[in-house]
């Protein structure tokens, strides 16, 4: 498939991650995937501010994860909030957090150019790592769009699968998108941590095809995370005091 930005069907857009951008938050990150930018701030684990937060909590004493999305995504924010809360709750080692504490993730989306949900997952995980919250694993979210050929086109034309779609590719007529969370991308055995679909008309084989492509692309994101954290630690090591101690 010929994509407008010249990418192949299974390639991701250039990634960028800047950690510790906000001073007041325990952890923060600015995640950029092509033209999509997501800013995430992590507050916690902290004590709940309102007693209602405890009342809404389950009967367990584990820490609670809250995700706040901007109001511009109100039409779909309820589903995305539940999705992000479940993904982050499963990857955070809650037993290491104080009981009845709350970890709050606040997301801002300054720029939307497609694959926003995947970028929200990556920004949230980056903010958690910046806040030194212990994680069980790194969830990698990969978006995929399935373009179904229209009836006026050649009937022999098969469906097209593209990873990390732009906004234009997502809004094409008769196209559906999937966001899959890959667990264990750095290992050989990968599993699906979560999946969210929108407007798909897919068969089981189509889902398997998308999953296969997502598995292959997930390792790139974990490698990028490793580079980003290594760069952050190097920057922290190169401080004035470190120079004084070494001398």
């Amino acid at each position, binding site marked *: 498939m010929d994509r407008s930005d010249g990418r192949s069907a299974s390639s991701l857009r250039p990634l960028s991650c800047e950690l510790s951008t906000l001073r007041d938050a325990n952890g923060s990150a600015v995640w950029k995937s092509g033209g999509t930018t997501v800013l995430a701030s992590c507050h916690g684990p902290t004590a709940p501010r309102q007693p209602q937060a405890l009342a809404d909590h389950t009967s367990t004493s584990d820490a609670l994860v809250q995700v706040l999305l901007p109001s511009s995504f109100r039409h779909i924010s309820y589903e995305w909030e539940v999705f992000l809360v*479940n*993904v982050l709750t499963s990857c955070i080692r809650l037993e290491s957090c104080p009981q009845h504490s709350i970890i709050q993730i606040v997301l801002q989306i300054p720029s939307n150019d497609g694959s926003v949900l995947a970028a929200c997952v990556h920004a949230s995980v980056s903010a958690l790592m910046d806040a030194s919250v212990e994680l069980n694993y790194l969830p990698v979210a990969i978006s995929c769009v399935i373009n179904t050929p229209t009836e006026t086109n050649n009937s022999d034309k098969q469906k097209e699968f593209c990873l990390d779609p732009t906004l234009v590719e997502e809004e094409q007529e008769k196209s559906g998108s999937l966001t899959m*969370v890959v667990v264990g991308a750095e290992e050989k055995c990968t599993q699906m941590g979560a999946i969210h*679909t929108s407007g*798909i008309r897919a068969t089981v084989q189509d889902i398997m095809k998308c999953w296969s492509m997502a598995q292959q692309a997930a390792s790139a994101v974990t490698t990028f995370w490793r580079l980003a954290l290594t760069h952050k630690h190097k920057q922290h090591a190169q401080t004035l005091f470190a120079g004084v101690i070494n001398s």
Partner: protein
Amino acid sequence: MVKETEPANETMNEAEHDITATTDITAGSMSVDNQQEDWSQLMNQIAVTLTAKEYVENYWKQKTRPDGRLFSQTRATTVVSVGDADADVGDNDDDLARRKNENSNPEVLGSALVTVGETRILSTVTFTVGQSTNKAGDVAVTLSFPCGQDSPKSAPIESYIQRLLLETIPLEQLSLQHYADDSTVNFKSSLSNNRQLSSKQQQRSAVVNLAFMAIRLQVSLQVVHNDGNLWDAAVLASVAALRRTILPALEWNSDSQTFCLLDKSDLVPKTQLQLPILPVSLTLGIYYQKEEDDADAAAAVKHNKLNWMTDPTRLEEESGWLTSCLTVVIDANSSSNDCNLVSLEYSGQQPLTVESDLLLALHMAAARAKEIKTLLLVETKPMAKTSAK
């Protein structure tokens, strides 16, 4: 000397008495301990029975469920829908009278009562007319609980069903653009002939653009009783009501600059809402059964057995064991060889193996879609009740 021995005897008797009293006290304390132990055992048994978590797990370990179903078995489902989409009904006086009595509210286009086990949801379809930006109609969904209970849970379900209906219903059929084609000339002529339009009418005539007028279908879901798996019941209730929905017959009134609803007793051609895609939902909870024989924690994780809890009840949902939930929506109108997935939602604490776990769930969802399609086809006459297991 005898006198001296008497105090000794008394002392001995007192001692024996003391010994006897001590024994009685010990026996009493022992009986109290036994009672306390029995009481604690009784309380533990009561706690196990009353605590949902242990109560449900006891059944699941025996490969059954509290209501006697198998893990892959859904609850009995009934659909009772009311609408004017009776193609077989004629236009004689009896049929017209029956149709009028069934749905006496002209603003209600269709309704349905869906029962999944003990979960009951009543759905009604009404409409409003307004301007849209893309000349196509709109669908809005509201979900309400009795007495405001569980209201925080309604927002995700509303958002999900609304998005599902917007993706599956062709919205072009809700457009009122044809009124612009028919009445534009009359609209302009009325303006030119009647120069005494009020300021409000002039303002309204300037704003109303018939080419962009469209119908918004309002699907109202009322939870009559919640016994778990609201997602599937709500989707089925919405679809069942929309299947029987007849689009309103409207007439543009150029004098009042509004749309008027034609009386149903008039023999106007009925336009049924077209649903080329019939979404059927199946929700499965995931229960991981840990193998207790493995002492090594890592080995125990590998041997955790995944069990699909199809159509969970409220007791099972609130037990705390179902940490993950998968909802599959399949187009029941698609062929059996190539079933079309309409939606796939999964997020939880346990990851899935796509090649085995997910495929099994998709096959179960396809079987459920066939079952629901048969149920909806059998339910042709109003107030007819069928059940499916």
